[in-house]
């Protein structure tokens, strides 16, 4: 083969490899103790499209670790079929979903389905979701959320999105993907680091720290338009953005007046107001749902987590065990606090029950970082390391269920779990 053609082939195969490796792959390494056995019948209608829907629903439910899938092949059901509850019960399914796909008059797809409780022999409800042909997986995630909520009483997070940073070949890419790691797209590429992405409460924007100006600067980035606004670029370092619960303000960390201290700014960068006044480091602010702010401070001699009111003032120390507790993340239900704790030189994900103050270490890894709660407070996404490579890990708040998300050709870090879709 002429040398020239060999080169082209090599380039093409490299391109193909890049496309494949850019996708997050997911691996489940644990499951809940009492999984609900559920059967998801094949959807009636166009077979290729119906397969995508059913496969998405099944893999979502299975990945959550809360369900055990019962084989439903050959059931031949749709959402209006009579259900032989006894038959499904004897197959081992406590719950069953059946549905169909049909083309709506405007050419889009309508997914209809019902969910049944085979024990009580009743339908639990049903819904119809309209979707484009290229958004069948999104419809599958919505259906999985519906089933999850009917069967567990909690809202599902399958149709939420995650943000994270991939470092490969000296490039940094801020990516957005579905909660299952599929459909990744790059919101920002840079030759300089990007850290600390956080979702606005409505899910339309990300705030993050970019080093593209040779120093840390806080940006707010509107995902749909790609428009970026500098919200903190003062003399010194600007970092650690956190959205207020109403999305109108950001807590940020600025070094403009000396040490790293916490300030509040409007989401457009105006109206800077200082919140902490310590002689040391105050950083990593996060708003709890009640508006109070958790943060990391070395005011007591070692980095520990503290809590203060929305307008600053007196702070109460929250962590006491060990001499390195950082990166506080209050859950959306206000009941728990995830953070990173150093124990015997290992950095591990810990969760505090805020009512009892009990702390539980959830991992046995050594380099956990940057925890992020799912909006239903059930799972926590962290960055960690396996085999010298940065990967993401999702851990249930009781530590039983673990999933790993990795990219073959790069380090994945700085995860941020997005809000419920509106």
């Amino acid at each position, binding site marked *: 083969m002429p040398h020239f053609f060999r080169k082209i082939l090599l380039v093409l195969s490299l391109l193909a490899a890049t496309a494949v490796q850019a996708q997050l792959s997911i691996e489940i390494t644990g499951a809940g103790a009492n999984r609900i056995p559920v059967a998801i019948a094949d959807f009636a209608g166009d077979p290729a499209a119906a397969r995508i829907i059913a496969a998405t629903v099944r893999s979502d439910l299975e990945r959550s670790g809360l369900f055990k899938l019962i084989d439903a092949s050959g059931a031949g059901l749709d*959402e209006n079929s009579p*259900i032989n509850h006894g038959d499904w019960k004897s197959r081992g399914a*406590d*719950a069953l979903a059946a549905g169909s796909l049909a083309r709506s008059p405007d050419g889009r797809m309508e997914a*209809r389905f019902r969910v049944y409780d085979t024990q*009580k*022999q*009743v*339908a*639990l*409800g*049903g*819904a*119809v*979701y*309209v*979707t484009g042909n290229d*958004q069948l997986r*999104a419809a599958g995630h*919505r259906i999985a959320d*519906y089933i999850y909520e009917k069967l*567990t009483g909690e809202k599902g997070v399958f149709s939420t999105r995650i943000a994270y940073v991939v470092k490969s070949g000296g490039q940094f890419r801020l990516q*957005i993907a*579905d909660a299952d790691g599929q*459909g*990744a*797209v790059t919101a*920002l*590429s*840079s*030759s*300089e680091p990007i*850290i*600390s992405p956080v979702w606005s409460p409505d899910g339309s924007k990300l705030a993050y720290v970019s*080093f*593209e*100006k*040779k*120093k*840390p600067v806080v940006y707010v980035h509107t995902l*749909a338009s*790609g428009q970026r606004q500098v919200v903190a670029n003062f003399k*010194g*370092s600007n*970092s*650690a953005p956190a959205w207020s619960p109403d999305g109108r303000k950001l807590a940020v*960390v600025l*070094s403009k007046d000396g*040490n790293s201290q916490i300030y509040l700014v409007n989401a457009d960068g105006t109206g800077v107001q200082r919140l902490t006044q310590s002689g040391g*480091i105050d*950083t*990593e602010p996060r708003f709890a749902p009640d508006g109070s702010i958790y943060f*990391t401070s070395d005011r007591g001699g070692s980095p520990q987590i503290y809590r203060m009111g929305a307008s600053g003032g007196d702070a109460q120390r929250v962590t006491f065990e060990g001499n390195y507790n*950082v*990166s506080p993340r209050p859950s959306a239900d206000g009941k728990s606090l995830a953070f*990173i704790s*150093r124990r015997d030189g290992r950095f591990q994900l810990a969760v505090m029950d805020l009512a009892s103050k009990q702390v539980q270490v959830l991992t046995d890894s050594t380099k956990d*970082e940057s925890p992020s709660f799912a909006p239903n407070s059930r799972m926590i996404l962290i960055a960690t390391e396996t085999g010298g490579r940065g990967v993401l890990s999702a851990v249930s708040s009781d530590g039983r269920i673990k999933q790993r998300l990795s990219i073959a050709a790069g380090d994945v870090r*700085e995860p941020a779990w997005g809000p419920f*879709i509106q």
Partner: protein
Amino acid sequence: MKKLLIPALLAALMVGCSSTPIDETGGAPVESRSGSGVTPVTAGGLDSRGLPRELTDPKSVLSQRSIYFDLDKYEVKDEYKDLVAAHAKYLVANKGFKVLIQGNTDERGSREYNLSLGQKRSDSVKRSLILLGAKEDQVESVSLGEEKPKNPGHDEAAWADNRRADILYKAPDGRGEF
């Protein structure tokens, strides 16, 4: 499955099992969740040069721009006092020049907390320069935390290389390293 009970009973009471209504209000379109929902942006790549030779010539002390720190330490060590003094002298003699001091840490621990620790290192170099006569508006101290390791290794030697502050220069015409 206890939580299933009430909605299930209600559904059964109202309409009977096989005709449970499908919630047509759920028919709102499923929005594009990815793909067209995100517009890609590219950033970074500042790399202008054009500084006087005395700042870049390897034979000049001013080409030495790195100050190393001990573990958990933030004060400029004695062995770097002459180096810092040489840069202060240059800034005093060349009022139009500015420096950016970038503090760095090793990779262990929280990225944001390390950013604040790197800031303590760059602030310490800045204080020394100001004490020696450099003007406040000539010196900015910032932190890169653990994000830009000079040594990509994961051992004590690599960590020592990365506990560092670097001095970057900018000429009066705006050309330079930052």
